[in-house]
């Protein structure tokens, strides 16, 4: 069975964590980009096609929630899974109200992370598929077929 890798962007100021998790995800045949702050994250999504962002909530400079707002303003279809090392589940829930897909507490169980990544990618693909169909209908209507 051929699985298409998920394009994941990992955003965390803890560089060792980013390195280890990206190596692990890559070993699991996913395609991983990484950023150590919100600004880098926004630059990467401009230039690359990203499906899911794993975003740390506590970062110096632009924090997780701010970064999330920027991501959703620029590329609303990218799904975001938030990571929190703190007991700040409230912040994570606020994040979900702002459009994040889900959140996980650090350190997270890898199987659960993979499930959430798959679910997030599926939601993005479903949404993109609906958009394609809507566009196709629109084209057909314009060309007078229907």
């Amino acid at each position, binding site marked *: 069975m051929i699985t298409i890798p998920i394009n994941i962007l990992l955003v965390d100021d*803890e560089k*060792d964590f980013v390195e280890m*998790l990206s*190596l*692990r995800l890559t*070993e699991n045949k996913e395609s991983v980009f990484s950023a150590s702050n919100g600004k880098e994250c926004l630059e990467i999504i401009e230039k690359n096609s990203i499906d899911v962002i794993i975003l740390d909530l506590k970062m110096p400079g632009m924090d997780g929630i701010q970064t999330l707002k920027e991501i959703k303003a620029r590329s609303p279809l990218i799904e975001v899974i938030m990571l929190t090392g*703190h*007991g700040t589940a409230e912040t994570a829930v606020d994040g979900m109200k702002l459009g994040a897909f889900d959140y996980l507490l*650090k350190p*997270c169980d890898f199987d659960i992370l993979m499930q959430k990544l798959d679910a997030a990618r599926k939601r993005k693909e479903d949404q993109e598929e609906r958009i394609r169909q809507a566009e196709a209908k629109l084209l057909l209507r314009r060309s007078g077929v229907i």
Partner: protein
Amino acid sequence: MEDSKLLIVDDEENFRNAIVRRLKKRGQAVIEADCAESALSIMANDSIDVVVSDIKMPGMDGLRFLKQIKSRYPACEVILITGHASATDGVSGIKEGAFDYLTKPIALDHLINKINHAREKINRKIAEEKDAIFKESIRQKMIATERLASLGTLSAGVAHEINNPLAIINEACGWMKTILASDKMKDIPRKNDLDKALSKIENSIVRVRNITHHLLQFSRKPDNIISDVNINQLINETIQFLNKEMTSKNIQILVKNKTNAIVIGSDPAQIRQVLLNVMTNAIHASYPDETIEICISNQNKGVYLDIKDKGEGIPPENLDKVFEPFFTTKAPGEGTGLGLFVIKGIIENLKGKISLTSQLGQGSQCSIFFPCLYQKE
């Protein structure tokens, strides 16, 4: 100290009788003794707050008697009486701790004045001691509260600092496991040992993670977990829980239900804590063999509870203070004064209201409103 008595000690019977008679006329409770030795045996049995003693007495004299009193009953005040020519004895008496001295012949008003002053001093000392005990108990509570708060901050900090490196260990370990599981690594030597070591690391990470996540929970204010709350059922559970307290005072709880089983959306665990506290208060306030009434009614998309006891009630000046932290009328150590303060916090967190009305001698009524916290679709 209201029933404490005055003790007059003098070997001269006439003088003693005259003074005692006149003091009694002025409404003083007086006991008399003809020597220091019998005075001390009276003091061993009776509650004496002020001693008026002659200095010159056969056997134990007034100054030695004073020393005995001060070592056995430090709270007792002593007024010495000296002969007209021996004021120096009086002065040395004061040095030994006497309240004052009077010189014979004695003006009764003067003596009564001195006795009153001595009693004022005693009362002042008692008030100061009470105040010191009260302040100390407050200080202890503050320390406990601060300790709890800083424990929360500390554990949250520690948990956070541990979680980040733990996450790195977790991903590094997971990465190695993935590598070892790949086809290329199938035949490497001692693969089983490596797998074993990695799964030990993995299990330990789970253990540490459970600890840090618990610490974080402890330091957080509780999240409201909103679900169906059956108020009647919760009240019945609470009554069962308080059964022992109720039977020991022979108190009945009468639940008046104006509607049938009321279900609202709120946090059952927090409501249970409120009910337990408020109903315990009602039981403590009630006189034995009385009935506590609980009225439940369903209004404004929520539930109103009125808990009525027939206890002694709360004086109006205290009614405003009952929700303040550390306010209690119980003896130090018996109540923290935090019960209603915490309860009010919980109720406000659940968007509810609590109020208290009371009439002295007739009882108190605690009214609580819990709204339904389900969002209407």
